[in-house]
């Protein structure tokens, strides 16, 4: 495991968020190594998004500490924002601006010269360069959202439920995009509640529930541990499932 030797680019220690007397995130700790794809799994309301937003310096931290590439997020939010890319859950962009113009604007926010066409090509939206975001399909929108998160060549990319609401084709397409990004050495932290997605993309996952991390390891190890506890699936595992049928019949081609 060469990954273990790599430096931890994100270190979360005792991170806590409270709203009134309700604790949404309860003293969680984990590390993410550089170049890793790290997944945070959990049912709705587990505190995944809140956790991400605190790491991203978008939400005040009530307790604990987050260090990103050596910077304390609470103390140096601007320095942190320089090196991260964020795809927010249900991200809204300005209306009446073409994709190219949006990317130019975002580049400007980082004081960078824009290369909108390269970014659009990377996420397969070259033909949509002149379209407005409001006229994109769900999958296109998510891909554009990732392009926008890449304008500043971030070292860490945050994806909050990137495939929620997408059809199987668009979902697979997005998985490929994440794998491409990983190949470039960018650390990816994503949340999802699709297990197959986590299994396919993530090097390690943390399972969150009620504001706490209840398990953290590689997907394979987690499965092994479960089996070691004597777990047996009640149903016989089929060689294919309905999604395989669907993809076989409708093809992998994107529908947009």
């Amino acid at each position, binding site marked *: 495991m060469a990954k273990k030797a790599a430096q931890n680019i994100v270190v979360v220690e005792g991170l806590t968020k409270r709203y009134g007397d309700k604790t949404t995130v309860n003293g969680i700790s984990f590390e993410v190594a550089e170049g890793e794809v790290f997944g945070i799994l959990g049912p709705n309301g587990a505190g995944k998004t809140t956790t991400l937003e605190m790491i991203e310096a978008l939400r005040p931290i009530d307790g604990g500490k987050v260090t990103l590439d050596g910077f304390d997020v609470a103390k140096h939010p601007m320095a942190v924002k320089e090196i991260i890319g964020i795809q*927010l859950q249900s991200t809204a962009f300005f209306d009446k601006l073409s994709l190219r113009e949006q990317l130019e604007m975002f580049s*400007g926010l980082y004081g960078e010269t824009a290369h909108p066409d390269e970014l659009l090509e990377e996420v397969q939206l070259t033909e949509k360069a002149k379209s407005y975001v409001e006229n994109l399909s769900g999958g296109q929108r998510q891909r554009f959202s990732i392009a926008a998160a890449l304008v500043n060549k971030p070292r860490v990319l945050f994806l909050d439920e990137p495939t929620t609401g997408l059809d199987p084709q668009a979902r697979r397409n997005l998985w490929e995009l994440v794998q491409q990004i990983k190949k470039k050495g960018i650390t990816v932290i994503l949340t999802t509640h699709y297990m197959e997605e986590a299994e396919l993309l993530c090097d390690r996952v943390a399972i969150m529930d009620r504001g706490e991390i209840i398990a953290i390891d590689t997907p394979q190890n987690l499965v092994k541990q479960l089996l070691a506890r004597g777990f047996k699936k009640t149903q016989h595992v089929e060689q294919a499932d309905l999604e395989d049928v669907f993809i076989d019949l409708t093809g992998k081609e994107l529908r947009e």
Partner: protein
Amino acid sequence: MNAKITRYFTAVWGLMKAYIRRLFRDKVALFFTFLFPVLFLFVFGSINRGSGDISFTVAVINNSDSSFSQQFIGELEKNETFKIKEDVTTLDDARERMGRGEIDTIIEAPEGFGEENAQGVPAGKLNVYYEEASPQGGQTIAAVLQGTLDGINKQFGQPDAPLSVEQKSTATENLSSFDYIFSGLLGFTILSLGIFGLANAMPAEKKTGAFRRLRAAPIGASQLVLANAGAYLVSGLLSLVLMFVVATQMFDFTMRGDYLTLLVFIIFSIFVMFGFGLAIGGWAKNENQSAPLTNVVALPLMFLSGVFFPRFLFPEWLQGITGYLPLTPIVDGIRYITTEGARLIDLGPQLLILLIWGVVIYIIAFKFFRWE
């Protein structure tokens, strides 16, 4: 350090460009920014075209020591047919106010008016001054006064009428009433673009999440505010230029001042008004919060700052208070520049009131700004 500043403004410029592009692609915004002010101009311009209204607002000046004159003027001031401007005591002051359209007629009892003549009866000429451009009021008043004096003449049994009225038409500044209300219309445009536009746009962007996305980048609220201000300044100035073109072409508006002075004054005004929109839009979480607050702020300004009704129609106490509203110095200042050729130095009081409002409102705006 320089690189930091460059970077700061690169972001502002990029955002500002985005805002301007969006504005010019938004039909509703285009309507309210450009067409609406011009429509407004047509409506009010047509009502006030030429020398429309006669209000019979008069100034009465007594320069004669004769007891007849004292008595006569005293009676005149009790008369309720005319609305008499009480605080005007000298002819020069009265003429200046007539130039501004505050009063439309001056009745002057000149020195020696009412003194007894050789026959031992009061004699002399009463002067009635009126605006050459709007003679109706003055001529009516002159006729009424002549009738009154004739009655007195008859009582003294003088057939050769020793008391008479002399009508004096003066071309003070030759302002049309349109010239006068135009400043109010410009003020209204500055108000509505500055407050309504921003106070609605910002909460909408908070609601869609567009602000959150911007915030993911390393930019500060000040950059967002500057970009908005810049975009608003550009569209606002274009809108005002359009109004000037229409006013000059269609309503014979005559500009008496210096355009550069006006530009500087208007840019300053726009920034101050923008502060109000920013304070509301920056604080409000959604349109439900911003809409009522916008009305609470904008409506009094609209009706009390001399936009629709000239402030001199108000009772004295109200004139005093409304003079300190933020829109009043804007409307007054623009009017002094366009109708009297005022320079920035002449506008000290207006600029001072604006400056104070500007400082206060921006402090409030930054303090209460919320990203979401």
